Each structure stands twice: as structure tokens, then as C-alpha cells.
């Protein structure tokens, strides 16, 4: 995109084939703004059209090739120059030559692997996007379109409860229990705190959800802690034998699935922090990691359609017609 001289001589635009039917998901950008993007899952095909519109009809557009890329990359904020691309696909749309009029090009990235969930954090960003480029001698003309990817999981086979006895000898003994160790993002944490010994004057008790984003490796590991929620579960002084219930609905908080060592670049983990505060404002706490996962919604129509196409191909039948008509607009060769 050139800001000097005559400006761009062409506009480039990317439109998805299923733009009408595909769901959008909200995603927070680096500056905190929430925007909606098309939502994709692992294995889904990304197909659409690239529209090249000449600004001055009649004036030919010379180019070094037109292509579209599908990119998945990780960007560490402290090392902005280096993007780590873990998915990089390219389709050539036009060989070097010239365009005499506006033109539309079809593209399809079939069953693209999208192994990680889109994530915008405090020190790292993982994003997927399409980038259409018209190669030029001096300045390329390009356009990016971000998409959002969610990773889905199914109910874990093994999901044991967390139950532990902790305390300070002869001062405070508690037994805490959380009903699961793996929770989905709309789940409920059901638990209890049982007091075995109380020799300090407790004023109240709360449970916090802490998100820890870890970036870097080896000696350069950096943890960014963020308290997502503070939820008071007890106000007043408990005595021995008292049992305090916990019921914490996760749907009300903005959280992502647990991400462990994504592409060896970063992790996002969640912890429950049980905090007791005594009359002199002293804090006693116990942190426990939980695993968060994303549950699939009701039937994903676009997914089953793609799966149907895929299965037909493997069964040897001819490739079925695309649902929309091929738009070879104004292409008389």
C-alpha cells in the first residue's frame, strides 16, 4: 500500500464462499477492542474469491503475479520482527502479466489443518489470516483477512475430582474439594471447603481464577498473571467441622481453553486460588491448576457439509459441483 505518489491503482478484496452461512465469533484485539470474525475449525476448507478492481478502467495493471496465502502464525510482542509461521499455504491465482479489466479469482484451501486456537494475549498473539497479494515492481498491493479458529474437545474420559488437605501445623487445617479437574468454558465449579482446625481468626474467604500466560523458553521464561475472577465464598469466622460450599459459574468470565506449550512458544494455564484472610489482613492461600476446554456447540452444519464432500472424493466419485455458480465474470480470455 503506497501512501506517496499516485496511490494504489487497484483494490483487492477477499470474500468467502460461505460468508452468508458461516458463523462469526467475537475476538478481542490487542488494543482491547472486540471484533467479529468468521469462525473456522480444524480440517475445514477455506474457499472464496479474490476480487481485483482496477481503479482507472482502461489503464492496464502490470503485475508480477497474483496469489493468495493462508497463514497461521505466532507473534511474540517482544520480538515483533520474527513471525513464527506454523501453517503456510499458497495458491497462485495469476502468472505475471497484466490485467486490462477488473477480475475475480476463485481459490480453495482444502481441509486446512488449524491445530491451535486463535489467541490474543498480553505478550503473544496467535492468528490465522488470508492474504491476497498482487506483486508489483516497487510496492505489492495486498489485503489481509483475519479469521478466528476455535479448538474443540469432547468430554474427557478421565476427570477426577481434586481433593486435598492443606494447612499450617496446629493453626489451620482445611480440606478442599473441587468436583472436577477439567472444566469446559460454560461449566460450573462445584466444591467445598471443610475446616478441620481453626486456631486463627478468619474474616473471609474467596476463590480467585488466575490466568497465567507463559512466553519464552529456557532462562527467558516470562509469566504474566492475571486475576480473571474474585468470588467471595465465605464472610465471617468458621469453626471446626464447618463446611462451606462453592458454586462458581464459568460462563460469566472471559476465558480461553488451556493451551500447553503451543508450538513450543507459549502456554496459557488457569489456576484456582483459594484465599483465606484473617482479622489482621494476613492472607493464606492454596493454588491449584485446572484444565479448561472448549465444548462443541450443537451440530456444525458447515462442518458436516465439508465432511460429506471429503467422503465423496475418497469414494472415487467425481468432484461435485460447488454450491455457488462459478463466477468467471468478464473473463473472455
Amino acid at each position, binding site marked *: 500500500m503506497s501512501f506517496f505518489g499516485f496511490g494504489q491503482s487497484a483494490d483487492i478484496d477477499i470474500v468467502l464462499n460461505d460468508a452468508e452461512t458461516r458463523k462469526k465469533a467475537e475476538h478481542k484485539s490487542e488494543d482491547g477492542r472486540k471484533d467479529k470474525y468468521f469462525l473456522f475449525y480444524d480440517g475445514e476448507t477455506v474457499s472464496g474469491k479474490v476480487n481485483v478492481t482496477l481503479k482507472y478502467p482502461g489503464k492496464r495493471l502490470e503485475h508480477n503475479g497474483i496469489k493468495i496465502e493462508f497463514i497461521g502464525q505466532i507473534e511474540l510482542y517482544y520480538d515483533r520482527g520474527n513471525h513464527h509461521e506454523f501453517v503456510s499455504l499458497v495458491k497462485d491465482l495469476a502468472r505475471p502479466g497484466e490485467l486490462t479489466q477488473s477480475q475475480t479469482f476463485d481459490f480453495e484451501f482444502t481441509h486446512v489443518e488449524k491445530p491451535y486456537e486463535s489467541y490474543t494475549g498480553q505478550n503473544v498473539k496467535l492468528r490465522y489470516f488470508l492474504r491476497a497479494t498482487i506483486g508489483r515492481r516497487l510496492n505489492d498491493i495486498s489485503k489481509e483477512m483475519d479469521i478466528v479458529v476455535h479448538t474443540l474437545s469432547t468430554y474427557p474420559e478421565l476427570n477426577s475430582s481434586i481433593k486435598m488437605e492443606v494447612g499450617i501445623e496446629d*493453626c489451620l487445617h482445611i480440606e478442599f474439594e473441587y468436583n472436577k479437574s477439567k472444566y469446559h468454558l460454560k*461449566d460450573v465449579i*462445584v466444591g*467445598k471447603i471443610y475446616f478441620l482446625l*481453626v486456631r*486463627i481468626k478468619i474474616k473471609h474467604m474467596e476463590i480467585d481464577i488466575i490466568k497465567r500466560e507463559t512466553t519464552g523458553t529456557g532462562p527467558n521464561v516470562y509469566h504474566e498473571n492475571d486475576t480473571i475472577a474474585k468470588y467471595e465464598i465465605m464472610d465471617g469466622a468458621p469453626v471446626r467441622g464447618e463446611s462451606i*460450599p462453592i458454586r462458581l459459574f464459568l460462563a460469566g468470565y472471559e476465558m480461553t481453553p488451556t493451551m500447553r506449550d503451543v508450538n513450543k512458544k507459549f502456554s496459557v494455564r488457569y489456576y484456582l486460588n483459594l484465599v483465606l484472610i*484473617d482479622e*489482621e489482613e494476613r492472607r493464606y492461600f492454596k493454588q491449584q491448576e485446572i484444565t479448561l476446554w472448549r465444548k462443541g456447540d450443537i451440530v456444525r452444519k458447515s462442518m458436516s457439509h465439508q465432511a460429506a464432500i471429503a467422503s465423496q472424493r475418497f469414494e472415487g466419485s467425481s468432484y461435485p459441483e460447488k454450491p455457488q455458480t462459478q463466477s468467471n465474470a468478464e473473463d473472455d480470455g
Partner: protein
Amino acid sequence: MADTIADTRRLFSKPQNLNDAYGPPSNFLEIDVSNPETIGVGRTRYTTYEVRLKTNLPIFKLKESSVRRRYSDFEWLRAELERESKVVVPPLPGKALIRQLPFRGDDGIFDDSFIEERRQGLEQFLNKVAGHPLAQNERCLHMFLQDESVDKSYTPSKIRQA
């Protein structure tokens, strides 16, 4: 197709023993600093305070005790705790050196309102410190609160429960 509704019923817990529920709590600890008395004459005068303790915590040998302490004893306790334990020790009320200078209009450090202010500060200090689980392990705290007098040449040690 509706999502299955999560089971949010409370987890099972043992019913509480009525003695535990309605009996005296096991965290009873009350410390009062009161009855200031100025002893001596002239330049060797000093003020002592009564430090009274009532508790049911097993770590204290006496369930009730009363001793008399002066400001410098509190300073000694604070220094010992800072050195021997990992506790972040709260500050004492001020040393009031200015009040000890001559030619004042009032009674200096023997002024009633000053003594009351200091008494409150000392009481707050002791309650904060004595309730700290780590400070309760220090011999110096128990000596300060419950022994007849403070032996500044003692050997620092930790209290171990039997």
C-alpha cells in the same frame, strides 16, 4: 437441541458436631494493654503498662497471664522478631524523642494524652503480632507475654508443640 444442564448440587459433607458449632471457638486470643503507671522520680522516671492475655490456644503455656512491660521491652521484642523470624513485623508507635527534650509546655512523655495514644498503639501492635502463626513459634514472644520479666540475655529458640 438443548445443552445438558450441569449438576450443581452441593457436594456431600459430614454434618457438624453440635459442640463444635456452638462451643467456644479454638481461636480465642485477647490481649489488652492498660493501666499505665509512671514509676520513679526525676530523670529516671519511666512508664509501665499492664499486658494482659487470655487465650485457649494450646501454644500458650498459660491460658491467662498478666505482666508489666515498658516501651523499651516492646522495642526489644520487635527487634528479636525481625531478626529471628520471617514475619514482617508491624511498626511500633513512635519513639517521641522530641517529647523528651527539656523546656516543653506539657509533661513530655508523661503527658496523659501521649500515654493513651502510645497505649493504643502498643495494644494494636501486640494483637497483630501475637496472632501471627509464625510469631507464635518464637520463644521471645512467649517470654514477653507470659514470663515475669524479660531476660534480654536469653537464647533465641523456636517453640515446639509436644
